[in-house]
C-alpha cells in the first residue's frame, strides 16, 4: 500500500528527470541545426520577450524594434554615429549618396540616392520607395512620423529614379533629422510589397523583405529569439557596398533574461554582446570570463551614450522655480557619492548640460574648461566660484583601493574616462542661500519654506527597469535629507508619463539627448522654445518637461533654426546655450548615460572599444550594424 504510492511518486520524478536528460544535450558546435556557433554572433535584445514576434511592421506600433530588424534588415538615408565613425567620420551616407541639399530658405530638401542597392527579393531600391514611404506614413494616422509629415511636407516627388525632392510647408533647416539614424529614424519601405496592402497599420510585414545585409532565417513564435542570415548578395546593400562583407554568417538576437542570467550566459560563451549590466555584474563577468571586455579595457568599462541623466526639476513646483534654490540643491549634491552609489565610481560626470561623450569633449568640454574655472555667480548676495575641476580625481582615488591598477593614474586619462570637474559639494553655501531666501530650520534641523511649511522633495525614478538611475535617486535623496530637506526616491513605472504631464517635483531621468557624433543641439533644443511651453497638467511638448523658459534661450533656438546643420556658428550657439544653462540651472546635470555593454572576444574579435571607437556596441542601436563588417572570427570553434 505504502510502497505502491511511493513507487508512483518516485516513478513520476524519474520519468521527468530521464525525459530531460535523454533530450539531445545542446551541442556547443551548433546553436541550431545547420547553424554553426562560430559563424554566429549572439546579441542581447533588451526589449526582452516580444509578445507579437511575427510582426515586423517597424512603422506602426507593435512588434519588436531591436530584434535585429532595425539593425540588420532596415536601412535609412543617413546615420550619425555617437562615437568617431569607421573612418573617423560619424556622418554616414547610407541610402543617400550625399548629405541633404537644402534651398536658400530651407523650404525644399533634395536627396540623391545611391545606385545599385537591391531589396533581398531582388527588386532594385529606387526613389519610388522613398516617396512611397513618406506618402504612406503621411496618409495613415497612427503610423510613426505621420503627424510630423502631415504638418511639414507639402509634396514629395521623384525627379528621376535616384533623386527625391521634398517641398516643405515651412522653413525647416533640420528636416533631414527625421531620416537620420541616431538610435532609429524613418526607415524606407519596399514599395512593391506595401503598395498591395489594404491597411498598412495592420500589416505585419512577415517575413520582412530586407534592405540590409541580413535576412530573417527563423524566429521563436514565443518571442525569445530572432535568427538572421547574411544575404548572398550582401554587396548590394549600403553597408556591404561601403565596408565589405559582414563577418558573421548568422546573427542571433535573444532575450537572455534578467542581468544575472546574462552574466551566466556570457560566461558560458552563449552571449557575445550583452546590452547592459550593473557595474557589479560587469566585474563578475570579466572576472569569470577572460575574453569578456567592456568599452574601456578596465575601469570604468561602460560605453557613454550621448544622453545626459540629470535631476529634472519641475520649475512650476514651489520653491523649485527659484534659480538660487536650484543652485542650493545642486551644491548639496556630492557627485563622488552619487557616482560611487550608482555606477560604483564608473560614471562619466558632467557639470555642463551636454553628455560628456564621443566628440563632445573636444567640441565643448575642452573649450569651456577655462570659462568654468573662472566662472563666478552671485548667490545669497555673494560672488561665488562653484566649479570644482578635481571632482573626478577624487572619484578615481576612491575606487583605486579596491580596483588597483585598473584605475588610470594619468590625469588626462582619468578625465577621459570619468569626465572633467563638477560643482562644489558645499552645504554651507547652500545653507546661506536658503537663509537668504527666508527659509528657516526647525528643531530637527529640517528646512521650512519661507511660509513656515516643512519642505520635502520626492525624486521619481524608474525602479527595476533602470537600476542604476534608481541608485542615483536614492543617493541624492539621502544627501538632500542629510542637508535638511527630507527626500525620498519614489519608484514609478509611469515616470515618463508623469514627467510629460508635470506631475512630479524632481526626477532622475533625461531631457538632453544629442547626436554624439554631431555638434548640433537642435535635436533636443527645438521643443524648448517658449512657443511650445506647456504648463503642468498639459502634455509637455518634446523634452521641456521641466517647464523652463527664458528669452535668451529663445534667441539661441531661433538663431540655430536659421543656420545650416553643419554651420560652424552652431558651435558658438551651442556654447551660448551651455553658459546660459549653467547660469539658470534648468536641471542638474549629472553624468552621461553609461551603458555596460560587454562583448565576448571568444568567437569574434574587433568589437568597437574606447581605443577603436568606430561604432556603438550598445546592441539595440540601429547603428551597431557598422560593427558587423569590422568583426573577425578568432578561429575558435
Amino acid at each position: 500500500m505504502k510502497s505502491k504510492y511511493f513507487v508512483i511518486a518516485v516513478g513520476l520524478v524519474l520519468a521527468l528527470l530521464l525525459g530531460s536528460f535523454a533530450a539531445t544535450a545542446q551541442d556547443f558546435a551548433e546553436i541550431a541545426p545547420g547553424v554553426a556557433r562560430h559563424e554566429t554572433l549572439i546579441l542581447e535584445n533588451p526589449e526582452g520577450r516580444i509578445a507579437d514576434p511575427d510582426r515586423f511592421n517597424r512603422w506602426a506600433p507593435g512588434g519588436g524594434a531591436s530584434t535585429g530588424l532595425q539593425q540588420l534588415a532596415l536601412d535609412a538615408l543617413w546615420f550619425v554615429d555617437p562615437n568617431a565613425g569607421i573612418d573617423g567620420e560619424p556622418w554616414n551616407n547610407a541610402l543617400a549618396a550625399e548629405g541633404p541639399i537644402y534651398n536658400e530658405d530651407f523650404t525644399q530638401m533634395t536627396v540623391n540616392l545611391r545606385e545599385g542597392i537591391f531589396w533581398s527579393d531582388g527588386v532594385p531600391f529606387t526613389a519610388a520607395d522613398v516617396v512611397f514611404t513618406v506618402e504612406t506614413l503621411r496618409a495613415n494616422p497612427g503610423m510613426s512620423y505621420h503627424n510630423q509629415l502631415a504638418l511639414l511636407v507639402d509634396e514629395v516627388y521623384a525627379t528621376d529614379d535616384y533623386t527625391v525632392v521634398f517641398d516643405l510647408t515651412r522653413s525647416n533647416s533640420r528636416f533631414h533629422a527625421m531620416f537620420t539614424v541616431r538610435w532609429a529614424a524613418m526607415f524606407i519601405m519596399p514599395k512593391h510589397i506595401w503598395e498591395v496592402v489594404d491597411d498598412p497599420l495592420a500589416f505585419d510585414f512577415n517575413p520582412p523583405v530586407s534592405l540590409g545585409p541580413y535576412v530573417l532565417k527563423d524566429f521563436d513564435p514565443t518571442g525569445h529569439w530572432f535568427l538572421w542570415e547574411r544575404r548572398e548578395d550582401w554587396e548590394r546593400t549600403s553597408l556591404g557596398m561601403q565596408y565589405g562583407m559582414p563577418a558573421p554568417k548568422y546573427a542571433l538576437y535573444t532575450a537572455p533574461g534578467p542581468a544575472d542570467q546574462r552574466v551566466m550566459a556570457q560566461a558560458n560563451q552563449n552571449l557575445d554582446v550583452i546590452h547592459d549590466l550593473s557595474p557589479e555584474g560587469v566585474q563578475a563577468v570579466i572576472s569569470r570570463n577572460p575574453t569578456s571586455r567592456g568599452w574601456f579595457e578596465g575601469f570604468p568599462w561602460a560605453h557613454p551614450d550621448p544622453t545626459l541623466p540629470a535631476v529634472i526639476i519641475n520649475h512650476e513646483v514651489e520653491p523649485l522655480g527659484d534659480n538660487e534654490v536650484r543652485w542650493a540643491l545642486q551644491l548639496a549634491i556630492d557627485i563622488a557619492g552619487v557616482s560611487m552609489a550608482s555606477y560604483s565610481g564608473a560614471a562619466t560626470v558632467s557639470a555642463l548640460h551636454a553628455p560628456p561623450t564621443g566628440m563632445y569633449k573636444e567640441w565643448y568640454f575642452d573649450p569651456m574648461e577655462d570659462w568654468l574655472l573662472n566662472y563666478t555667480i552671485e548667490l545669497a548676495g555673494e560672488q561665488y566660484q562653484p566649479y570644482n575641476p578635481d571632482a573626478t580625481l577624487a572619484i578615481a582615488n576612491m575606487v583605486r583601493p579596491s580596483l588597483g591598477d585598473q584605475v588610470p593614474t594619468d590625469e588626462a586619462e582619468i578625465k577621459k574616462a570619468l569626465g572633467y570637474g563638477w560643482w562644489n559639494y558645499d552645504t554651507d553655501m547652500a545653507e546661506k542661500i536658503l537663509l537668504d531666501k527666508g527659509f528657516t530650520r526647525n528643531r530637527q534641523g529640517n528646512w521650512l519654506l519661507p511660509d513656515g511649511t516643512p519642505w520635502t522633495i520626492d525624486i521619481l525614478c524608474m525602479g527595476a527597469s533602470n537600476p542604476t538611475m534608481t541608485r542615483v535617486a536614492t543617493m541624492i535623496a539621502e544627501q538632500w535629507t542629510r542637508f535638511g530637506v527630507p527626500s525620498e526616491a519614489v519608484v514609478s513605472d509611469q515616470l515618463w508619463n508623469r514627467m510629460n504631464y508635470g506631475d512630479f517635483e524632481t526626477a532622475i531621468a533625461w531631457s538632453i539627448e544629442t547626436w554624439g557624433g554631431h555638434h548640433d543641439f537642435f535635436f533636443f533644443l527645438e521643443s524648448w522654445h517658449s512657443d511650445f511651453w506647456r504648463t503642468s497638467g498639459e502634455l509637455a511638448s518634446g523634452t521641456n518637461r521641466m517647464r523652463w523658459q527664458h528669452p535668451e534661450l529663445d534667441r539661441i533656438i531661433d538663431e540655430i533654426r536659421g543656420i545650416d546643420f553643419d554651420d560652424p556658428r552652431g558651435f558658438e550657439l551651442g556654447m551660448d546655450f551651455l553658459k546660459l544653462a549653467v547660469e539658470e540651472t534648468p536641471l542638474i546635470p549629472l553624468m552621461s548615460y553609461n551603458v555596460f555593454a560587454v562583448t565576448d572576444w571568444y568567437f569574434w574579435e574587433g568589437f568597437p572599444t574606447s581605443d577603436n571607437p568606430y561604432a556603438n556596441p550598445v546592441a539595440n542601436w540601429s547603428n551597431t550594424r557598422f560593427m558587423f563588417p569590422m568583426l573577425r572570427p578568432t578561429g575558435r570553434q
Partner: protein
Amino acid sequence: MRSFFGILKDLLSRDGRFRFAFIALSALILFSLASYWSPHSPRFSFVVPPNMRPNLDYWFGTNSRGQDLFWMMTFATRNSLAFGLMTAALSRVISIFVGLTSGYKGGLYDRVLMAINDSFIVLPVLPILILLNFILRGQMNLFTLSLTMAFFGWAFDARLMRSQVLSLKEREFTNNAIFSGMKMHKITLKEHLPFVMPIVFSTWINNMMWAMGMEVTLSVLGLSNINIATIGTTIYWANQHQALISGVWWWLGAPVAISVLLFLSMYLTVISLNQHLDPRTRLQRIREATTDGT
C-alpha cells in the same frame, strides 16, 4: 479557563517543538527591537565599508551600499513582522465575521455572502495591487499596503471557516446539543469555537506568510516602496547590485536565513498551540498517558 501563562508553561515543559519556536521567536523579536538602538539610520548608505564578509565587527557582513547588514536586518525584520501581523489581524476580523455568519445563518445570507466572498477569491490580487500602486502614485507605504492586502486576503479563509462550521453543524454533538435545548450562540461558543480556533490560528499564520511572501514578490518585481527596509526590499537591493553573481552571497543569505527562521518558528508555535487547544488532542494525551501506564 487557564491563564495564558499556564498554557505557556505547560507547552514549554511538554513540547520540544514549541520550546524551539518560542526561543527562536523571542530571539527574533528581541532582534527586531534592537533596531531602536541601531547606530545607523536604515535610510543612509555608505556608513560602513562596503562588501565585507561576515566577521566579528559586522556579524552579518556589509552590503555593496555600505550598510551593516546586522542593523539593516533588525529594521527589515521589525517592518516585515509588523506588516504581516497587521495584515493578518485585519483580514482575520473580516474572515471570521463572514465565515461564521455565512455558516450559521445559511440560506440567503450564506448565498449573498459567499457570492461576495467568491468574487474576492477570484479577483487577481497581484494585478490589482499593481494597479493600486498606480492610483496611489507610488506612495504606497507598508500601512496602506497592509490595508489593501487585508482587504483582498480574507476570502479564502472565510470559506475555510464556513466549511468547518457547516461540517460542525451536521455533526452529532451539535444535534444532541440542539435537542437538549442549548441556544445556537451558546453552542457556537462552547462546542464549536474550540474547533474553529485551530483554523483561525493556522490561517493567521498562512495569511502572514502570504502577506509577507507577497511583499517579497512585489519587491522583487520592483513595485514596493524601496526606501523602507523589509525582507523584500533587502532582496530587491541585493538584486539591483547582482549580489549573488558578484559573490556577495551574505546580502541574500541574511534575509533568507531570517525569513526561514521566522516562518519556521511561527509555524511550529501554531501547530503546538493548535494541538494543545484542540480538545481531541488533549483527550489523546490523557489516553496516551493511561495506556503508557498499563
